[in-house]
């Protein structure tokens, strides 16, 4: 019998278990004479679920663009990989620009990974569309000339839900307990939430920072009960949200659960009987708009299920990028930046057109609060949410819900 010391064996075992967390890239390479676009999104880890929707959305956009003749007469060659973590995301972004010849980058959901890709984009002087990251700081103190931000920032999510909660009398004078994702996104969201609570006379009586790989929330739920709040507020991300929502339903606390961040993918994962409360979203597949519905139909035909909000944002981003390249007849970074900074308007499948704000490169667009449909009214497992009134209201300017220059200053170097 071959002898191996117990410790060596266990050490090797642990190393393998660790390695399995790293995941493997799905690489789609192709040929010359194409316009190559680098795409990174988390396909593994706590954001992997919504990242896989993002990848489906961007692939559909590339196929549609190519089927209608491509951009500048060339086909788009989409190079899509798992971004894994902030360090790997930066390494891959650098490789895509330097070795694979990508002319522009897009993607990402994690604010931490998006931040490192933004730095790579700036160093290489290439444009990066951060499609799904929501941290205010990316548009504020970390902003740079080459980075554009498509999803709604944390402040907008807080304003969207906060306004809906205020109307129900659930803010003023109420005691809030928050559960916050322990990385840049969560810290940033908590900051936005605190400033909202401060401005609306609500009290924050407790906050827990929670690591992104936590799956069991019971110790935190005990602390929530010990604090006896009026409202529990979820500032978590990805699988964290799903796990919390399920376990909150399990414990059956009387305090209403609301949240400043939720992706439809997380809501679907939590399941119909578990989710309740009021949450924000950037888009939902039942949105009554012809362009949105055309996208939903195409996506559902191809993948057999409706798109999630990250699928939608990746889809519209690649579409508006193609439009910009065709209009400027160039893939040159400076020409593209100049075009977007003129605040060109894009149809993104919402009532009002969207544009990138010139001073912080934020895609200014409508947002929505939503509540959960009673189970017996759902048409299918995806028909879970009821969109509330659009924010800002139709006659208010779009920018009223976005952070101002004073709130979130961005000093972009030329």
């Amino acid at each position, binding site marked *: 019998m071959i002898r191996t010391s117990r410790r060596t064996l266990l050490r*090797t075992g642990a190393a393998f*278990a660790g390695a399995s967390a790293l995941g493997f890239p799905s690489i789609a390479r192709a040929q010359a004479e194409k316009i190559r676009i680098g795409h990174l999104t988390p396909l593994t880890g706590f954001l992997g679920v919504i990242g896989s929707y993002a990848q489906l959305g961007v692939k559909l956009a590339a196929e549609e663009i190519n089927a209608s003749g491509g951009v500048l007469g060339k086909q788009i060659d989409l190079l899509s990989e798992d971004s894994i973590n902030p360090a790997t995301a930066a390494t891959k972004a650098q490789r895509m620009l330097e070795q694979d010849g990508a002319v522009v980058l897009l993607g990402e959901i994690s604010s931490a990974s998006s931040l490192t890709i933004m730095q790579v984009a700036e160093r290489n002087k290439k444009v990066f569309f951060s499609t799904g990251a929501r941290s205010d700081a990316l548009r504020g103190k970390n902003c740079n000339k080459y980075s554009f931000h498509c999803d709604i920032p944390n402040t907008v999510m807080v304003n969207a839900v906060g306004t809906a909660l205020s109307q129900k009398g659930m803010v003023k004078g109420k005691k809030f307990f928050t559960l916050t994702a322990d990385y840049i996104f969560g810290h940033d969201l908590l900051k936005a939430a605190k400033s909202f609570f401060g401005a609306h006379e609500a009290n924050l009586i407790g906050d827990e920072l929670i690591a992104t790989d*936590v799956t069991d929330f*019971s*110790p935190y739920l005990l602390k929530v009960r*010990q604090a006896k709040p009026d409202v529990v507020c979820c500032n978590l991300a990805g699988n964290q949200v799903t796990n919390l929502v*399920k376990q909150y339903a399990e414990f059956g606390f009387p305090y209403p659960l609301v949240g400043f961040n939720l992706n439809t993918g997380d809501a679907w994962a939590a399941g*119909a009987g578990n989710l309740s409360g009021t949450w924000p979203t950037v888009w939902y597949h039942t949105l009554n708009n012809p362009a949105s519905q055309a996208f939903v139909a195409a996506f559902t035909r191809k993948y057999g299920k409706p798109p999630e909000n990250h699928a939608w944002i990746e889809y519209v981003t690649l579409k508006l990028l193609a439009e910009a390249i065709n209009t400027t007849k160039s893939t040159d970074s400076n020409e593209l930046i100049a075009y977007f900074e003129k605040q060109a308007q894009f149809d993104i499948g919402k009532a009002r057109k969207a544009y990138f704000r010139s001073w912080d490169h934020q895609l200014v667009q409508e947002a929505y609060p939503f509540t959960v449909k009673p189970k017996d009214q759902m048409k299918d497992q995806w028909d879970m949410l009821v969109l509330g009134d659009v924010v800002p209201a139709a006659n208010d300017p779009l920018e009223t819900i976005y952070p101002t220059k004073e709130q979130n200053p961005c000093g972009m170097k030329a």
Partner: protein
Amino acid sequence: MQLEFLLEQVVNGLVLGGYYLLIALGLSLIFSVGGIVNLAHGAFYALGAYVCVELTKRLGFGASVVISPFAVALLGILFERFILRRFYTADPILSLLVTFGLAMVAEQAIRMIWGAAPVSTEIPQSFRGSVIVGDFLFSRYRLLILAVVAAILLGIWLLLQKTSFGRVVRAGIQRPDMVAALGIRLQPYMTAIVMLGVGMAALGGAFFAPITTVHPAMGAEIMTVAFVVVVIGGLGSFWGVVIAALLVGVVRGIAIHFEPAAGEASIYILMFLVLLVRPRGLLGERIEKFE
């Protein structure tokens, strides 16, 4: 008041530890008897959850949570017969590689069958909500899990200590060559141990399906904690693993009480400290074949 809150975390940690035990005990048994670090153990946990979600649509949760572990245990027979059996006497690195590969194949297979997006199920209404016993709050559902784990634990202990099956298994852990010399084939015992181990992992998955995200990578997620428990408990020791699982649950709860951000790190610090003092784990026996 502060002390009461702390005690509540300790008790809750014990409940959670019971759940960790479902996964760690099988991992430890398979390693002790077969000498195989089963990196695919998490895959059976994930399969247990998925099969349970799938069956719940037709049979309801109660029946599914019972049937799912048995179905996965049957799969365990194939796993032992056609894969593990070839590696009992081979270089352990080979079984590490093959189970690591299998874990990836299983994860991708789940992704292909059920998709990358999570599937969901919920707890039956009668088990929702919490009960207050004395000063402590418990989730009704977790009390049910704890009761089942306690029953299983007792069953396995009796099986290992009081039956001839258990005697052979315990002898096989220490001196497989001696068992062979007595004319006893260990292979059928190994099949039973693997069935038991992966069945327990599947039961863990089925039980946790309604209260956690059921997604393809959930198997990899649980493996780290299971490993920590096995390493702290020490190999070959039934009670070592039991104590370690409870300890890990409690230490995590206490850490979260005082310093929430350190919650996840606390169990690794615990492992480090235990190994520093007792390199074989808390109650690890000296097993000649691994020395």
